[in-house]
């Protein structure tokens, strides 16, 4: 950079040469520029000659004058390989379109490796109007840039994590009741991100029953600084019902007042459904286990009572008793053996219900099965002058084991006739209906009724009888219950003494 050239370009307000001169000549200007930590540079567009200010050199860890005065060599040696192309592109764009030249690049320092700098500049024309040189400045932005990169990475990680975990964050400014959601919450609600949420509408997405819970939790969190962590169901904007986990933590100011509520909101639908399914299987298994235990108990008890009597009679038989007495005792032994056989038949029947896994379900018509049951009991019905009504119109058929339905009808109907009220003719009403996913049947009579306060847990037990009735065997309702439960249903009883009995059966 010769003095001659300097004069040639003297017309520029701040040319390299002018700058060079002033830089050192004017102490104040020099100090000012150096104190801003800004390095200056100049580049001759024609021959790629360059000048680097003392601060520029210092920023890169060099002495003033130690840097090559060629812009080409600067690009080659000092600019990070990945940043070369963007830098050259920015430069060419600037020359072509005068677009602002400002770019972040990594420059190789003498001792600290690459550091981030922001370089900006402007091309100036010569006396002929041709762009001949660029003057610019660099600032060390390494710390800021690294923080930015770190932040971006963290943000990326968080976003990815949130996306994978289906979890979003939210904040409620309690003073203004302003609610802010992260992107994921919008996604969970299946709402567009351009709407701004508010507490009331956010709560309105919760399903009835859960809405009251979340409402109370939010209000308690604000009023009493009480955190919450709940698993509830929402109906999304698109109408999907899903399980979410919502957690809220109050942020408390120095007066102990909740000023902000923060929390997470997570879609836990898949896991929750799995959990619920598991619980269902567990309940089913527990139920089955309970029935098996109950059965083992029944077997033990019922066989014991017969074997006990048998032993009793055999012992007496061995005593010194008369021939007539021996006949009596033998008669008893015979009747014990008969009841033993009956009991074993009953137990077999129960075992069959419990173990017949491949029960064949067929569409069964309630009316025809009910009518054939009435035919079986016809003489009984006539004798007792029973009035029997039915209405299967709202649910005329069911997929069921036909023999079970016949047996259920037969047991209930014969029970109603057997335990009719002595003062009135039996009146029996049987109906079916469909509710949500289940088929129900109700069976109601006006008979003797059962005192459920006393007998509630025994009604469906084996060999449980409640009335002094010689033909009561206490097996019917036990079998009925087993048949119903083995197909996943349940049976409930309501009864009042001298008024009647009503069974409500969930068939499937």
């Amino acid at each position, binding site marked *: 950079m010769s003095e001659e050239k300097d004069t040639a370009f003297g017309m520029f307000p701040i040319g390299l040469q002018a700058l060079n001169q002033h830089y050192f000549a004017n102490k104040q200007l020099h100090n000012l520029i150096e104190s801003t930590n800004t390095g200056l540079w100049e580049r001759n567009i024609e021959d790629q000659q360059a000048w680097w200010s003392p601060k520029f050199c210092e920023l890169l860890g060099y002495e003033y004058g130690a840097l090559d005065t060629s812009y080409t060599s600067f690009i080659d040696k000092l600019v990070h390989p990945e940043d070369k192309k963007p830098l050259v592109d920015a430069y060419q764009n600037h020359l072509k379109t005068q677009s602002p030249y400002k770019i972040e690049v990594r420059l190789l320092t003498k001792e600290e490796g690459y550091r981030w700098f922001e370089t900006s500049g402007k091309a100036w024309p010569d006396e002929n109007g041709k762009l001949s040189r660029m003057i610019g400045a660099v600032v060390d932005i390494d710390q800021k840039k690294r923080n930015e990169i770190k932040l971006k990475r963290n943000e990326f990680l968080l976003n990815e994590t949130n996306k994978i975990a289906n979890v979003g964050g939210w904040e409620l400014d309690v003073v203004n009741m302003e609610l802010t959601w992260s992107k994921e919450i919008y996604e969970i609600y299946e709402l567009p991100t351009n709407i701004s949420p508010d507490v009331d509408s956010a709560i309105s997405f919760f399903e009835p029953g859960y809405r009251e819970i979340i409402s109370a939790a939010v209000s308690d969190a604000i009023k009493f600084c009480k955190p919450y962590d709940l698993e509830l169901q929402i109906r999304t904007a698109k109408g999907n019902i899903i399980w979410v986990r919502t957690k809220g933590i109050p942020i408390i100011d120095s007066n102990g007042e909740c000023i902000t509520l923060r929390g997470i909101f997570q879609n836990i639908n898949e896991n929750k459904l799995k959990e619920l399914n598991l619980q269902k299987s567990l309940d089913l298994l527990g139920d089955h286990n309970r029935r098996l235990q109950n059965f083992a108990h029944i077997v033990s*008890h019922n066989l014991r009572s017969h074997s006990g*009597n048998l032993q*009793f009679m055999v*012992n007496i038989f061995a005593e010194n008793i008369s021939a007539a007495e021996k006949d009596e005792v033998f008669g008893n032994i015979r009747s014990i053996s008969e009841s033993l056989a009956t009991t074993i038949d009953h137990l077999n029947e129960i075992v069959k219900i419990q173990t017949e896994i491949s029960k064949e379900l067929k569409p069964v018509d309630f009316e025809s099965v009910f009518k054939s049951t009435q035919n079986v009991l016809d003489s009984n019905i006539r004798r007792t002058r029973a009035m029997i009504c039915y209405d299967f119109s709202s649910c005329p058929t069911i997929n069921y084991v036909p023999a079970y339905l016949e047996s259920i009808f037969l047991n209930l109907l014969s029970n109603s006739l057997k335990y009719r009220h002595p003062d009135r003719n039996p009146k029996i009403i049987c109906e079916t209906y469909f509710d949500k996913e289940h088929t129900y049947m109700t069976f109601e009579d006006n008979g003797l009724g059962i005192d459920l306060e006393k007998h509630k847990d025994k009604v469906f037990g084996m060999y449980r009888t409640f009335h*002094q009735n010689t033909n*009561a065997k206490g097996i019917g309702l036990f079998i009925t219950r087993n048949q119903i439960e083995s197909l996943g249903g349940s049976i409930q009883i309501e009864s009042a003494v001298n008024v009647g009995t009503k069974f409500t059966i969930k068939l499937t």
Partner: protein
Amino acid sequence: MMTATPFKTVCVIDDDKIYIYGLKKLITIKELSPNLMEFYNGKEAIDFLINPENQNQLPDIIFLDINMPVMDGWGFMESFVKIKPQLGKKITIYMVSSSINQDDINRAKGISDVTDYVIKPISQDTLVELFKVAA
């Protein structure tokens, strides 16, 4: 108080007729008591006990079954506790059942008016023993 009779009056409350037959026979064979009354459920027994006309025939020992229709053994004990003050006699009650369910055994032993719980069938030795205890 009644004057003590040489033989105790026995009452059996059970719906199992064969068992009652056996018990009766055994008592006769062992000459434990000539007086035996039988009821087929708890309610029949309570009705008898609370009837003032029967105050001279109250039993000394009751053998009480658990599972019975109309009023079972537990129901009988509930009613018995209530009417006990009206009865001018100490009555020894044994609960006798074929149930070996520990819940039943514990429940019976938890009732202070039940002297013991006996599992069916009653052996002759046990029967003799129970009469001695009730003495």
